[in-house]
C-alpha cells in the first residue's frame, strides 16, 4: 500500500548553498540531496544538523545563500527571494512532539490539513495506529504516542518534503525500537522524500538510503549510505557505525527446524541468519559489523561459521589512528564488505590487493524494516 501524495513528487532534488554565522558557530554548506528516499544527516551535537533543518524549513534565514527544492526557489538572498515557512509545504517532526495542548489529537492532526488531504486522514491515522487516540488531549499521551501524532500531523499537512529532527529522542529502548521500525516502514510507504537527522548510527543505518556527514557546520561527506560506509577515510568519523557493511537482501526461505532464515544478496550469494518473521521475498537490510568478519585463505570445512563468501581484496590500508590493524574492502559479487585484520595476520597470510580470500561471517544483524 503506497500512499500517493496529491501532487507528483518532484523528480529533481533539494539543493542548497548557505552561509550563516551564529556567534562562534559558522554553518557553511553546499549540498545536493536526492528528492526521494530517506537522507540521514549524521553528526555530533553542535555539528549544525538542526541549524540546517531550520534553514530548509524556513524557520531561520541564512546570512546568504540559495535553497532550491526542484524547480522551486525557496530562498535566494541575492535575488531577495524568501518563501516564508508556512508557504514552503515542508513538514517537520521536531525533537519534541510539539503538539498543541489545547487541541485534541484529531484537532492536531487536521490543523494543517488542506482539503485535498482529508481523504487520506483515515488511511494515515490507521497506518500510525492512533485511531484510538483521536479524542484524547495531548497531555494524556505517552511519549511514543505523542511522536506518532506529531508524525501524522506533519504528513497530513500535505508536505512535498518531510524533515525529522531526532524524532526518537527521549524514548526508552522498546518504544524507540517500535517507533524506529514504524518510521522505517512509513518512509517506504509514503512517497515523500524524508530528511532524517540523528546522532544515532543505529537509527541512521536502519532507515537511511543516503547519508550526509556533518562536522562543525560543514559537510564532511554526502553519498549513498553503503558507499560511505566502505570509505576508509571516514572510519573514525563514522566510528559509531562499527565500520559495518550494510547489504540489502531478499528472504529466500525459512528453516523452522533450526530457526534460520536464508537471505539472497544477489543471484549467487546467500546468507544464513537467525530466523526472522519477515515473509518470503520481502526485503531486508542486513548489517555486518567489521569485527564479525574473519578471513581465510580457502573455504574451510569444520568451522562454526555458517556463512562463507568468496571475495577479492579490493582495497587495503592502515589508518594512522590504529597502526596495528589493516582495513580491508572486499569485493563479493557486485557488493562490498569491510573487514579488519591485524597487520601481523595480513603479513602471515600474505594478503595483497586482488587476492582471492574467503570471508567468514560470524554474525549478522538486521536493521528492522
Amino acid at each position, binding site marked *: 500500500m503506497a500512499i500517493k501524495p496529491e501532487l507528483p513528487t518532484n523528480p529533481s532534488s533539494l539543493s542548497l548553498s548557505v552561509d550563516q554565522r551564529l556567534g562562534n558557530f559558522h554553518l557553511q554548506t553546499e549540498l545536493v540531496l536526492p528528492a526521494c528516499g530517506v537522507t540521514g544527516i549524521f553528526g555530533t551535537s553542535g555539528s549544525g544538523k538542526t541549524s540546517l533543518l531550520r534553514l530548509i524549513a524556513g524557520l531561520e534565514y541564512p546570512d546568504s545563500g540559495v535553497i532550491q527544492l526542484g524547480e522551486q526557489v525557496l530562498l535566494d538572498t541575492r535575488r531577495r527571494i524568501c518563501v516564508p515557512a508556512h508557504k514552503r509545504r515542508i513538514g517537520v517532526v*521536531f525533537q519534541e512532539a510539539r503538539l498543541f495542548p489545547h487541541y485534541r489529537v484529531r484537532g492536531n492532526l487536521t*490543523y494543517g490539513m488542506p482539503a485535498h488531504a482529508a481523504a487520506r486522514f483515515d488511511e494515515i491515522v490507521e497506518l500510525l495506529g492512533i485511531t484510538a487516540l483521536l479524542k484524547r488531549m495531548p497531555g494524556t499521551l505517552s511519549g511514543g504516542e505523542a511522536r506518532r501524532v506529531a508524525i501524522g500531523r506533519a504528513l497530513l499537512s500535505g508536505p512535498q518534503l518531510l524533515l525529522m529532527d531526532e524524532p526518537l529522542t527521549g524514548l526508552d529502548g522498546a518504544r524507540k525500537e517500535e517507533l524506529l521500525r514504524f518510521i522505517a516502514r512509513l518512509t517506504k510507504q509514503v512517497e515523500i522524500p524524508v530528511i532524517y537527522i540523528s546522532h544515532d548510527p543505529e537509527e541512521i543505518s536502519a532507515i537511511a538510503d543516503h547519508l550526509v556527514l556533518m562536522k562543525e557546520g560543514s559537510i564532511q561527506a554526502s553519498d549513498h549510505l553503503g558507499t560511505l560506509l566502505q570509505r576508509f577515510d571516514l572510519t573514525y568519523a563514522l566510528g559509531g557505525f562499527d565500520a559495518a557493511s550494510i547489504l540489502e537482501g531478499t528472504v529466500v526461505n525459512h528453516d523452522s527446524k533450526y530457526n534460520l532464515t536464508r537471505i539472497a544478496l544477489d543471484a549467487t550469494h546467500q546468507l544464513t541468519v537467525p530466523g526472522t518473521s519477515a515473509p518470503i521475498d520481502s526485503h531486508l537490510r542486513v548489517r555486518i559489523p567489521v569485527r564479525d568478519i574473519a578471513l581465510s585463505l580457502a573455504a574451510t570445512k569444520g568451522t562454526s561459521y555458517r556463512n562463507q563468501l568468496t571475495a577479492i581484496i579490493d582495497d587495503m590500508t592502515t589508518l594512522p589512528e590504529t597502526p596495528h590493524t589493516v582495513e580491508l574492502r572486499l569485493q563479493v559479487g557486485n557488493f562490498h564488505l569491510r573487514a579488519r585484520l591485524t597487520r601481523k595476520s595480513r603479513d602471515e597470510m600474505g594478503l595483497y590487493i586482488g587476492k582471492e580470500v574467503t570471508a567468514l561471517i560470524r554474525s549478522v544483524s538486521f536493521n528492522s524494516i
Partner: protein
Amino acid sequence: MTLSLAEWEAIRLSLLIGLAAVAWILPLGIAVAWWLARHDFRGKSLVDGLIHLPLVLPPVVVGYLLLVALGRQGVVGQWLYATLDVLLPFTWQGAAIASGVMAFPLLVRALRLSLEAVDPKLEAAASTLGASRWRIFATITLPLAVPGLLTGTVLAFARALSEFGATITFASNIPGETRTLPLALYTLIQTPGQESAAARLCLIAIVIALLSLVASEWLARRTRQRLQERDGY
C-alpha cells in the same frame, strides 16, 4: 433597601464607563502585549516605561495630560472638534478614555506575562503546518494566553470602575454623564448632612466589587474545568 435614582445613575454610569473602557483598550492591549512579548527592538524599555506610567503617576497628572492632548484646545482635541465635531471632556466617552488609560498597564502586564509563557516552538510548529502569522496568533498564541487575558480584563475592568483622579480631572463630575460611583461618593462626602447616603453608596461599591471578584473567580474556575474536561478521555 431600594436604590434612589441618583444611586442607579451612578451604578449605571460606572458599569457603562468600565465596560467601554475595557472595550477600547482590549484590542490595543492585546496588540501591544503581543508586540512586547514577541519582539525585541531599540527603545523597548522606554515604550514599556511609557505604558506603565499611569500606574506610577498621580492620576490627576494623567487627567491633566489628557486635557492637554484631547481637550478643546488640545493638540488632538482641537482637530477632533474642528473636523469631527467631537468633544471628549465632560462626556461619558471622555471618562471611558480616562479610566481606560489608567487601566491599560494592568491589562498589558497580565496579558504580556501570559503571552510570553506561550512556547514559541508551538508557533514555529504551526508555521511549518502552513499557518500564517494571523492564523497562528488566533489559533495558538491567543487561546493559550486566555488565563492572562481573563485576569487582565477583570483587573482592568475593576480599575476602570474605581477610577477617580483622571476621570474627575478630564471628564469632570457631571451628574448623569460622568458621575460614576467613586465620584458620587466623593460628592456626598463633601456635602454636609449626607453621611448616611454616603454610607449606602459605600456599601453598594463594596457589593459591586465583591460581585466582580466572585464573577472572575467563577470564570477562572470554569475555564480550568473546561480545560480539565477536555483532558478527560
